[in-house]
């Protein structure tokens, strides 16, 4: 659970605690399909995914973004989160283990708050970076 992180105690270049999830199973994809409301069959139906030219089902980008959300809210309370962005740069597959990382790239004041920008990424154990993004977090 998130602990108190102070603006003055963090520096550009600091890494936030890593989150490792997985290996992701087909069952995980089925649960996320139902819970998220994203019923696109490319994530759960390998027949459909093959026909769509993907070879097999792919892990929801938004499931991995939810893992990045956990990375952030394990670090600071969620009500500190101001912006959260991600590009989906490669596909993850069942059996991949997803490692989520973040590094502080900027400290600034905005909206009357002390804020930091964190570069975040998700990568598979095969070495593919699947998500790349950033978050803005207000610190005390």
């Amino acid at each position: 659970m998130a602990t108190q992180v102070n603006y003055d105690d963090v520096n550009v270049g600091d890494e936030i605690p890593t989150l490792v999830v997985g290996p992701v199973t087909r069952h995980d994809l089925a649960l996320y399909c139902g819970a998220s409301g994203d019923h696109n069959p490319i994530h759960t139906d390998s027949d459909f995914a093959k026909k769509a030219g993907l070879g097999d089902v792919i892990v929801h980008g938004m499931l991995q973004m939810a893992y990045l959300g956990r990375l952030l809210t394990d670090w600071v309370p969620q009500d500190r989160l101001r912006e959260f962005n991600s590009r989906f740069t490669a596909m993850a597959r069942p059996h991949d283990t997803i490692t989520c990382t973040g590094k502080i790239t900027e400290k600034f004041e905005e909206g009357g708050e002390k804020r930091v920008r964190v570069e975040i990424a998700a990568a598979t154990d095969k070495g593919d970076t699947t998500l790349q993004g950033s978050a803005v977090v207000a610190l005390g």
Partner: protein
Amino acid sequence: MLDKSKIGHEFEPVTFRVDEGRLRFFAKAIGETNPIHFDEAAAKAAGHPGVVAPPTFVGCLEMDKPDPFEMVSVVGGDLSKALHGNQTFVYHHPVYAGDHITYKSRIKNIYDKKGGALEFIDVETDAINQDGTLTAVIGQSVVIRNS
């Protein structure tokens, strides 16, 4: 080619209740371990009025609408060729179990790259709660693979 005349198209607003059971299911699906996301007592003990929706949930609930991929169909795209390219959230207010969230979406841009091999649909959505408070502005970019 996608129908670029749909830039600016506004989708019919939809309103959905944030169900506590759905949040429990969502927390399980994403492996969330912080009980404020699935246990009302824990959420209240932490000072929240109810179970707290995780950061991406507000972008997911809109998928409950009858055609969640209408941004693809309305511009003439093929869903089997569609992938999620980019997602953004700007947060203004928390979302809790019991909230009713109204989604107001529009097509912000349609463009292509690599000589039309990739086409992009950018959608922007305001997520507004039952008090008329903007909770988040959600941006989504869908990629259509034509190659």
